[in-house]
Each structure stands twice: as C-alpha cells, then as structure tokens.
C-alpha cells in the first residue's frame, strides 16, 4: 500500500540516504484533514513528481516539507542532513513571494543576504543573467510580466543553492523561454544531486525528468511509482 510505513524492517533497504522523511503526518485545519497518515521517504537525489487534483493536499505537503507549516501530528525529518535543524529547502509557491515594490536586484540581494549567501550581490547578478533579467534588474517587480515574475520567484528559491528543492506547479505562467530555462535548470540540479519534489499537472518535458511520481487524493498517497504504478498513469489519472 503506497504512502504507508514499510511492513517489516527488511521490506525496503535503502542504499541511498534519505533526504526527506514524512512520518505519519496529519495536517488538520479545524476538523478537516488536508493530509492524513502520510508516510514518505524521499531519497537524496530523487526527482519526485507530485500529482493530484486541486485540494488533494499537494500544496500542504510541500509547505510542510518547506517547514512553513507545522504538521498536526507526525514528524518531518531530514535524516541525511549534517545539521537537520538548519536545513532550508528551496521553495517555489503559487505566489511569487517577492516584493512588488522592490527591484529584481533588490529582491534577490535581500533574500541572499538574509540567508548568509556568499557574495550575495554576485550571486544575484549571476542568477539574473541566467534568467535574462539582467537588463531589467533595476525595474520594480511590479512592472514585470507574469512569466518574468515566475522566473524571479524561482530564482529566489535557488539563491542559497539548496540541496532540497520544492516546487508547486513551477511551470505556471512561464513563457517558452522560461519553461526551457526551468527544464534545463531542474535537469542540471538533479544531475548534481539536488533532491527535487515538484507538483505538476499532466505530462511535459519537466515531468519527464522525474525519477519517481506520487499521486495524492484527499490527503493520502494513493499511487507511487516505487510501488509499481507507472509514471504515465500517475500523471494523467484518466483525465481527472
């Protein structure tokens, strides 16, 4: 049964270290369960695609993994990390999480400095170049197009070179250039060992990067490629 703890100690020996572990996690808002009894072990370097209808719990799962949200029951851990308390996953949400009234450069430098990134200005510049936003670096984010904002949002998450990256429908609003950049970036990050968990709708160039896929329904994990389901079936659940 996917999404539940392994039945015996011999069931799933892991050779690769576990980057992220959800241990019987519940999240309740009032009486409603956004997540119920979720058990997941995500190995270091895995690229996991998260599928499911709106309201199935994908966003809650990602927000708990990012440590923004505390689970109502159960525990989140980072077994592989040297100092688990200071683990800081990169997180891309539905909102851009950047300041409209600051420039692109100011935004990235702000978040880089807060996170003690080495040479924050240089790092911000480098990302802006990569994103082809360098010529708009002194413009307020308020003036950016939807695609440009999404690019800045993703850049913000990458500033501190996280070893775990969480993305909530990252391709939303991206223009073809942005989409190609995202695809390239995720491929490179995955190749360099970054653990990626991304929620997606349907199949695409980006979902093809996934080494594993999970489907959530009503707060529970109902399908996992690790337990035999196919990537295709998880991502396209009969058009629902």
């Amino acid at each position, binding site marked *: 049964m996917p999404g539940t703890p392994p039945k015996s100690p011999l069931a799933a020996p892991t050779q690769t270290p576990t980057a992220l572990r959800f241990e019987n996690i519940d999240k309740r808002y*009032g009486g409603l369960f956004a997540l119920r009894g979720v058990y997941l072990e995500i190995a270091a370097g895995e690229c996991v695609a998260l599928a499911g209808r709106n309201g199935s719990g994908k966003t809650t799962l990602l927000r708990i993994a990012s440590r923004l949200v505390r689970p109502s029951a159960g525990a989140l851990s980072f077994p592989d990390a040297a100092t688990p308390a200071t683990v800081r996953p990169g997180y891309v949400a539905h909102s851009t999480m950047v300041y409209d009234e600051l420039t692109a450069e100011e935004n990235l430098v702000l978040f880089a400095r807060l996170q003690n990134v080495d040479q924050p200005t240089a790092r911000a510049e480098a990302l802006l170049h990569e994103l082809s936003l360098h010529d708009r670096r002194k413009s307020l984010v308020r003036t950016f197009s939807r695609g440009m904002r999404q690019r800045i949002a993703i850049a913000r998450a990458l500033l501190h070179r996280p070893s775990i990256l969480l993305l909530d429908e990252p391709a939303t609003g991206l223009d073809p250039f942005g989409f190609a950049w995202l695809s390239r970036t995720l491929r490179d990050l995955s190749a360099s060992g970054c653990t990626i968990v991304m929620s997606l709708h349907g199949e695409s160039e980006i979902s093809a990067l996934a080494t594993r896929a999970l489907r959530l329904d009503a707060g529970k994990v109902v399908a996992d490629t690790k337990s035999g389901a196919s990537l295709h079936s998880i991502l396209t659940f009969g058009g629902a």
Partner: protein
Amino acid sequence: MSKRILLGAVAVLLVIAAAFASFYIAPLERTMGALQKIFYFHAASAWAGMDAFFVCFIANLLYVWKRKPSYDWVAVSAAEVGLAFTTVVLITGPIWAKPAWGIWWTWDARLTSTFVLWLLYVSYLLLRSLIEEPDRRALLSSIFGIFAYLDVPLVYGSIRWWRTQHPQPVIMGGPGSGLEPTMAKVFFFSVLAMHVLMIFLIRERYLLEQTSSEVELLQREAEAT
C-alpha cells in the same frame, strides 16, 4: 449530571446566603447606611472577575504551550464569566455613586481601571468572533489574551498615578478604610460565594463550548464531503 446540579445548587445557595448576610447580619455603615451594602456585592464581583481573567490567562498560556482545544474552551469561558462579573462591578459602582455623590461617574481609579479591563476582554471576545478557523482563533486570541493580561497591572498602576495627580471622590472608600470585624466576615463570605458561582459558570460555559465545538467540527466535515 448530578455533579453539575450539585455545584449549581451550592453556588445559588451561597449567593442567597451572602445576600442575606449582607442585609441582615452585617451592621449598618456609619455614613452611608443601607446603600453601603452594595459594597459586598460590588467588591466580591470585582474579585471574582479578576480571578476569572487570571484563569483565562493561564488557559491562554497552556494553549500556546500544549495546543489542546480544551484549554481554549476554558479560556473563552473564563473570559465571558469574568466579563459578566466585571459588568456587575461597572453597574453597581454608579448605582452607589448616584445617591452618595449625586453623580453617576467620577473617574474613580478602581472603577476606571475596571472599565479598561472590561474593554480589554470585550476586545478579546470580539477578536475571537472575527476568526473562523478554530485553531487559528485559539492561537491568536491566546496571544492577545496574554498581552491583555500583562497590560492589567500597567493599567491599574497608571490610572492610580493619574488619580493622585487629580484627586476625585473615591467610590466606596479609599484603600485606607478598614472593615469592622463582622463586616469583614460577611465580605469574605460574599467573596467565597462569588467564587463558587464563578467556578460553576465557567464549568457550564466550558461544557457548552465543548459541545458546540464538536458540532462545528461535524458541520465542517459534512460540508467538505
């Protein structure tokens, strides 16, 4: 069920006994006469109200620490009961003042502080009514409740200083006026009666809150499916 009835009966009996004692056992006060007897009711309510707010404060701290909904139920119950007793204080004060001084309100230090206290807990209940999600409501109102209670000594202190700057007539005698022994006994009995009533009311309100929370939960679950 029988424990509840027993507690309620004891509370009511004690309050009636205290009223009886204040009218028939306590001697008439020298200057004010029968009017002064409101004091037993007024001051005992004040004490019970303050203690109810203290219970609310402790419940707020416990909720922030442990996050059990029952602590939040205690908090709202204690706040409402405290507010009820405080309202009694604010009404009996002027009732005494009008015949005694000819004016309804004199910005007397204790009464003014009580009024601010009343406002603080009205705000607390108002805040609660404006947050729908139960866990958020409990957490945010608990922290506001903690801030409000920390403010209480500061309110009393500042208003007392304020009144020393501009002295006004004091309702029911200043801190120096002592109580004759029989009066003191009746007073403490009134305090006891009010406290038992307070405990009974908090408990009843708590049980009500417990039931209504469970109903709310069921409603939300039903709406979700």
